[in-house]
């Protein structure tokens, strides 16, 4: 436990480096592209268009929440996809981050946790670039906002801790078991559909089956996504208890992730 807080403190000491590495990551990623930072917005937008065409126009939205309107459905989708992209790219990139930065770990003394933290944080920055666009769309095409939109930072915090914990775990384990990378991309596809993103929790099939409901409720991402949808799309109150429990789960995951990372730390310079 003491080690855990010691490591957190180390991370805090390196905050300037983290900040600089995030900026570097953002600069380097879109260097040479015509659209530059706009890609942070276009990527989820293009993904949203695909889902809108498939689920909005081809398989029409049956849920009453959308009034048969593909546009409303698209906004609902966007509320979930934007944070999901943050989560999934963070974990996919974390799986590689220690290996691709192997020369750093081997040659320079600095806490390796910085690398997954930077990955999660730079993806968070992408997410926050997309967020104003989403807000703007909801304002123009949607039902407008209620005061609950101000609870959004809480949801983001829960997701940040959860994503970081998951990424630390993935990053450290992948160094020893390279197959995680391949398992992960398939697992994330499954996870995506096992989370109410393309469908609302109020969907009739879900409400009709207690098994499905329990299954979805056991998925922490369900409550995080619902948090976004409640704040932004439905304009309703967060479900405190569920989000609170999810936050505790996120903290536990973060703790486990950090402990495993710390346990395996000494083996990184040899294995990467």
């Amino acid at each position, binding site marked *: 436990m003491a080690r855990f807080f010691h490591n957190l403190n180390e991370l805090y000491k390196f905050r*300037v480096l983290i900040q600089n590495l995030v900026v*570097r990551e953002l600069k380097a990623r879109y260097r*040479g592209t015509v659209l530059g930072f706009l890609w942070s917005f276009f990527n989820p937008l293009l993904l949203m268009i695909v889902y809108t065409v498939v689920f909005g126009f081809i398989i029409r939205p049956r849920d009453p929440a959308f009034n048969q309107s593909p546009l409303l459905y698209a906004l609902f989708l966007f509320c979930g996809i934007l944070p999901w992209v943050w989560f999934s790219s963070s974990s996919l990139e974390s799986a590689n981050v220690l290996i691709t930065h192997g020369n*750093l770990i*081997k040659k320079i003394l600095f806490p390796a946790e910085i690398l997954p933290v930077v990955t999660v944080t730079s993806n968070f920055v992408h997410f926050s670039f997309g967020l104003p666009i989403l807000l703007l769309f909801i304002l123009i095409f949607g039902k407008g906002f209620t005061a609950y939109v101000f609870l959004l930072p809480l949801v983001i915090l829960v997701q940040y801790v959860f994503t970081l914990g998951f990424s630390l775990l993935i990053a450290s384990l992948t160094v*020893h078991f390279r*197959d995680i990378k391949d398992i992960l991309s398939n697992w994330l596809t499954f996870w995506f559909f096992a989370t109410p993103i393309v469908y609302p929790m109020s969907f009739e099939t879900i409400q009709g089956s207690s098994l499905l409901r329990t299954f979805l409720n056991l998925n922490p991402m369900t409550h995080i996504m619902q948090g976004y949808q409640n704040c932004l799309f439905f304009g309703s109150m967060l479900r405190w208890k569920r989000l609170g429990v999810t936050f505790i789960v996120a903290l536990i995951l973060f703790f486990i992730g950090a402990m495993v990372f710390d346990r395996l730390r000494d083996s990184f310079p040899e294995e990467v």
Partner: protein
Amino acid sequence: MNAIEVDHVSRIYQKYSARHRFQTFKSALVKGDLFRALRPDELVTALEDVSLNVEKGQTFGVIGENGSGKSTLLKVIAGIAKPTKGRVRTEGKVSALIELGAGFHPEISGRENIYINGIMLGLSKKEINAKFDEIVAFAELEDFIDAPVKTYSSGMYMRLGFAIAINVNPDILLIDEVLAVGDASFVPKCLDRIDDFRRREKTILFVSHDLNTVAKICDDVAWLKGGRVQAVGEPKRIVDAYLQDVAEKQEKDFEKRRQEPAGIQEEDKGRRENRWGKREIEISRVSLKSLAGKEKSVFSPDEGMVIEMDIAAPSRQQDFVFGIGIFNSQGISCYGTNTHLEDYEPVSIEGEGKVVCRIERLCLINGTYYLDVAAHKKDGYPYDYHRNLYSFMVSSSLRDEGIARLPHGWEFSENIKIAPPKKA
């Protein structure tokens, strides 16, 4: 006061094994050996019970063959690798020049990389701002500092890496062989900086194969052999002992090769990297001796050297030339000659014999030298060619430069007041 204390440190590495490499997550879960204890047959000991103390302000050299644990020792002191057993204590800020520019990102500019690399090495943003121009000037990159690092040549890359690292201004500087890649004008500049460090009473740990530099700049030297400290002490003595050991090892290797069964030798003949020829005339043994006939490998420039070759010619040959060549550590030929160039006319050779080349005075500058010896035909067809198989060192307190030490003296007219060197 000690700046670095290495206390009975051992470092054990896991041997590369295909089985481990391809172990999967599933198999680890099934076997439950995610954190399993390693079996001893899969371990390699890189450092074994190493204890060293480096005083503050000392320049401490570490020498040894490849794989003797030098780099591991440096990594353990830098904190990058943890000692498996034992303890390391350092006093003050440590900066390790293990690989220059290790943290550079190719897509972003040199300017941004200076900041990020500087912060990684422990500088604050303010400190970097203050030193920025100095770093750029030292790296000679004024015109390229805003170009992405991927467009840099490897020389520019290295210069920038060194310029940042040297400006970190640590209390303890660890240097691992990084100067080996610099060009002729940059290396003296780096050495200058290191000298500057020494003057400011900083502690330097210097790992190098350039024994000459080690002997020149270090106050104390440790010699690592197979992960153990073989000897610690006064640089010249340790370097001499090390060279002696290397020479002995080469001698043994050579001996072993000579005693290899004929069958293998047949197959190998003419293919060995550093020795070729069908050995119609074989050089079976080479020894370096002082003029008085004592075998040695470290010479002073004023000393003479005798190169003795034992020759065996199983059948009678009528066309033969014996030659020697001396190369310095940069591979530059310092001197080469053979009996043909000196107009000796071969008549015949058969059976065993001895060829002695007697150099009355070496007249070389300090450094490590490699020796080629050969027996060949006049047209160059090799009987037995030994390429760089022997080495010796020239070591002295003299500091002159170049390739050869030309015999010389100084004379001054009376109006020039200049004190003669103090005789040691």
